[in-house]
């Protein structure tokens, strides 16, 4: 977008209304243009009935061809001008809505990256998508109020003025009747929204059921149960149909009342005006004009009501958005943050008693995966703990420096959509040679070579076009390419076959020579190659040394990594 993006400040996220206001004033000029165009267009709609009445009275009835042609020409000209105003208004308002939508999407994405590891602890990704897509649309739509919404009020005033010049009685009926009409129809429309809610909920559940069954198609095909699930879906589908009938019964009334009540109002006004015409207080042309004016009032009344209910829903949406934007990350730099220690310092975790020696490959073999994951979290500074780096508490180190130099490579780390090059290069501005080197170290050459365009091939989000093992190797390539001073990897080869694993660990050693690397694993292929192995039981270090030493000295360790049943039973 052309406009520079300024994220919302704390004042804008204080309350839903302030946020909507921020969306409006962030594009002042466009909003004002929209309001002016909206008002001119609505007022413009009142002119044709007036011209039509003149054409009838002064042209048609008076058999005055020149006057008739004049008024008809004016009618056409106004029609053209109004069409121009209408589309200008529509274009401006579309851009106003787009700007508001994208502004919020940007704010939500940006805030997600600020929250980082804190985000999954507070909200689900699904909620963020709801905020970033559905709520954004609702709020954007509500900004229509600034254009046609303002115009509706102006048009209503203008019609009242015009009617005043024809008949004070009719003007009074309109002035009182239209607000009453709005009050009567407004709740009807919001009723439709509410009834629809339960239907949509049920429909959502039915859709979820269908997704569940279709996703499990292979299970049902391989093991049976198709008939049971089809029958259940049918029952649920018929229940939705029954709810649909009830909703239809209500909404059909509300829909027809929504258009019928203004029509009824029009009928009553026409009747009164016809009487006035019969009494001679107004002319026949004026009678037709009154009909035209009141028929035209349907537009501003509808847009006014719509703006009202849009705004009500937008406030609910804005509340969700502002609540999200107000969240703060658990870990952030404070006034007491200190610089990271110089290179070559050891990491120490008092909770497990583990010290990570700098410059070597350390393998951590734990009996429980959860313990190893928690340990890596502490060493990587992803949670508050007593862990230190060169004696400095990790929680007090400037976060940017910590993340730059200590990299945690999760086993289930996200793969984002993009080319292989982007995926592997990540934050670094890597040259192709560096990317290939990382790919080679992670034994991922065959993956890249099998893809149609090499490094330019697209990786779908979540690595959707790759197998589990391929995803894992690509993740590792990405971590290697980032070349951090300290790399902490969780089970980096769990989905890789033995052939590949053996190759991978050798290449990883070469690629990380001289730097600190920690991997959690129970695979003997890796453990044997590690400079140091730490044996972890219940989250505590119980022994450390080379793999072969531990195999001899620690029966529990041997049981964990070897295949012998007897020892395993013994160790338990």
């Amino acid at each position, binding site marked *: 977008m052309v406009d520079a993006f300024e994220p919302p400040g704390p004042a804008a996220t204080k309350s839903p209304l302030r946020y909507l206001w921020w969306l409006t004033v962030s594009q002042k000029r466009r909003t004002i243009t929209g309001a002016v165009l909206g008002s001119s267009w609505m007022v413009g709609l009142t002119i044709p009935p007036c011209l*039509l009445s003149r054409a009838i009275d002064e042209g048609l009835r008076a058999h005055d061809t020149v006057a008739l042609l004049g008024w008809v020409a004016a009618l056409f000209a106004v029609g053209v001008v109004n069409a121009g105003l209408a589309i200008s208004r529509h274009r401006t308002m579309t851009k106003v809505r787009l700007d508001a939508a994208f502004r919020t999407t940007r704010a939500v994405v940006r805030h997600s990256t600020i929250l980082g590891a804190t985000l999954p602890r507070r909200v689900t990704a699904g909620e963020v998508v709801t905020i970033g897509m559905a709520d954004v649309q609702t709020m954007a739509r509500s900004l229509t109020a600034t254009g046609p919404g303002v115009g509706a009020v102006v048009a209503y005033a203008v019609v009242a003025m015009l009617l005043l010049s024809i008949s004070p009685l009719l003007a009074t009926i309109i002035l009182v009747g239209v607000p009453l009409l709005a009050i009567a129809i407004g709740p009807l429309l919001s009723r439709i929204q509410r009834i629809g809610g339960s239907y949509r909920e049920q429909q959502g559940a039915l859709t979820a059921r269908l997704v569940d069954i279709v996703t499990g198609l292979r299970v049902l095909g391989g093991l049976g149960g198709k008939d049971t699930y089809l029958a259940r879906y049918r029952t649920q589908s018929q229940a939705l149909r029954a709810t649909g*009938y009830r909703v239809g019964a209500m909404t059909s009334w509300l829909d027809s009342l929504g258009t019928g009540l203004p029509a009824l109002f029009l009928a009553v006004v026409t009747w009164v005006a*016809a009487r006035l015409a019969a009494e001679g207080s107004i002319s026949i042309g004026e009678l037709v004009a009154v009909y035209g004016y009141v028929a035209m009032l349907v537009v501003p009344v509808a847009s006014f009501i719509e703006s009202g209910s849009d705004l009500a829903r937008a406030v609910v949406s804005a509340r969700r958005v502002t609540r999200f934007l107000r969240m703060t990350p658990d870990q952030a730099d404070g006034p007491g943050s200190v610089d990271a220690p110089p290179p070559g310092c050891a990491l120490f975790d008092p909770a497990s008693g583990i010290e990570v020696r700098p410059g070597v490959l350390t393998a951590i073999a734990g009996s429980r995966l959860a313990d190893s994951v928690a340990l890596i979290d502490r060493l990587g500074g992803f949670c508050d703990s007593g862990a230190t780096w060169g004696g400095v508490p990790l929680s007090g180190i400037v976060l940017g420096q910590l993340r730059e130099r200590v990299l945690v490579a*999760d086993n289930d780390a996200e793969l984002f959509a993009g080319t292989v090059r982007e995926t592997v290069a*990540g934050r670094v501005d890597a040259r192709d040679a560096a990317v290939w080197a990382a790919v080679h170290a992670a034994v991922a050459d065959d993956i890249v070579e099998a893809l149609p365009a090499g490094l330019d091939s697209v990786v779908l989000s979540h690595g959707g076009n790759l*197998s589990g093992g391929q995803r894992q190797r690509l993740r590792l390539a990405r971590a290697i390419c980032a070349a951090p001073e300290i790399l902490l990897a969780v089970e980096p080869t769990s989905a890789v076959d033995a052939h590949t694993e053996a190759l991978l660990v050798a290449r990883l050693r070469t690629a990380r020579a001289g730097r600190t690397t920690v991997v959690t694993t129970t695979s003997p292929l890796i453990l044997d190659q590690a400079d140091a192995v730490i044996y972890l039981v219940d989250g505590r270090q119980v022994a450390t040394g080379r793999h072969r030493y531990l195999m001899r000295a620690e029966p529990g360790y041997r049981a964990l990594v070897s295949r012998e049943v007897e020892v395993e039973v013994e160790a338990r």
Partner: protein
Amino acid sequence: MTAPLPVAPPAEVRRAARRDIARERGTFVVMMLLNVLAAGVGLAGPWLLGVIVDTVKASPHAVLGTVDRLGATIVAVTIAHLVLSRYALYVGARFGERTAARVRERFLERSLALPARVAERSDLGDLLARGTTDINSVAGTLSSAAPTVLINGVQALLLIAAVLIIDPLLGVCGLGCLAVITAVLRWYLRRARPAYLALGAASSVVAEVLSTTAGGARTIEALGLQRLRAEATERAIAASRGAQLHALSLRTVLYPTLDISYTLPLVGVLILGAVLYAHGLTTLGTVIAAALYLRQLASPIDNIMIWIEQLQIAGASYARVEGLATVPTEQPHSTAEPTGDRIEVTGAHYSYGHGDVLRGIDLSVRAGERLAIVGPSGAGKSTLGRLLAGVDGPHTGTVTVGRVPIGHLAPDRLRRQVVLVTQEHHVFHDSLRDNLRLAHPGATDAQLRAALATVGARWADELPDGLDTVIGGAHQLGGAEAQQVALARVILADPHTVILDEATALLDATTARGTERALAAVLDGRTVIAIAHRLQTAHDADRVVVMDAGLITELGRHEDLIALGGTYARLWRSWHDGGR
């Protein structure tokens, strides 16, 4: 690897639509009748106004009673219109709901009837999109858009008829001026569909960026990918904005043209009306009524415009949903009864379209043996597993069980023979009991508990409602737990041959080994074929198959292969040396 599902061709779509309407013939007739009545009554307003004008003009000051009668008629007619349109909408909505239910139930029926080979190779995302987005688009259109379009369409037609009836000459003149609408509409519709499809695709990219950014927020922090994500967002937004503006440019042509088109007939009718009136060929009231009818035409046409795109989109969705009907069904099932449990693979070749994945496999699996298949990624292990399980057939060569081609067995007979368990398992959003019983409908709770215990699913005992606990929602299962459910199902299904394709890969090493052993004990006497990357599995097996590049390169007992000194021996040695 995946093949696209077909979309129904236009002729097929029309046939399906006609069938769906024919099933509701009675309702359809009532619906049309109500619509015509409602629209007809709606026409009375302007006509009555015309009558009032003529009455007042003919004899001013003396007709208050007549005017009152006409005025009251206008009010009564409006009320009648309101009530009639309500019933027209209601019957339409019921028609839509019923048809929508029929369409979605038919869709699931067809999805479940997809042959395993097609289901395996189809893009699951595509099938899901049809089942969610497309089904909902068809349903939404049927229950709300279709009735609205119908009532407005009938109204527009009747308005046109009304002008023609009150004065044919004026009517033809007015309608001639409306011809522009048809032209611009055709222009627009040709371009609108691709434009709105692009719009939808662009906004799903934005949604995708949002969801992966939120889902991968920790990864972004760990790897410092903030700038890259911001760039991806900007790209997605730019694309979405571009698509929006393109659609807007189409509307920029359509809307003003329509607006001006509504004015044209008015101009035409007034000028022609003046001429006719001057020559006494028509009355003032007729001209006014014709003018008002033509002005009124704008509203139904606008209403149809609002929905016409949705109708188009729903039409495309309907074609995608009905596309499943064109998938060729299962080949005729063989009635031959397998003699014995021996599985034979002879000269099997298989290809996913570019180069053979299996290049001539001969393998005989003895009943009751434990066979391990090992080899590097891409060697064709999983493909062989799928052939052995009868999920797919070889392109050349045969795979038989007890001398019957395995792919020819009907699903319910096949699953008594062979069950394949892969890493991709699925736990239904249902009670744990239902999740297990699908493999053995008559199983008792004791049997279910025993199966769970065998696979080491101790967590099942701690569930708040035991076997009645609904999985999903509050009780999500992790990958390892879901895998245990999948294995418990196999125990309950009790086939004579089980193929485990990395079926324990998600369990941690200790649990995996325990589970595999327990499974072996339960399946004692059954044939177990394990595709694995853990070499322990191979060591425990009776025979080991080593695959490379679509061929079996080594086959034999563990000890024999070690003695042979080939690939397997080398790998084992590195493992073994590491393990000692």
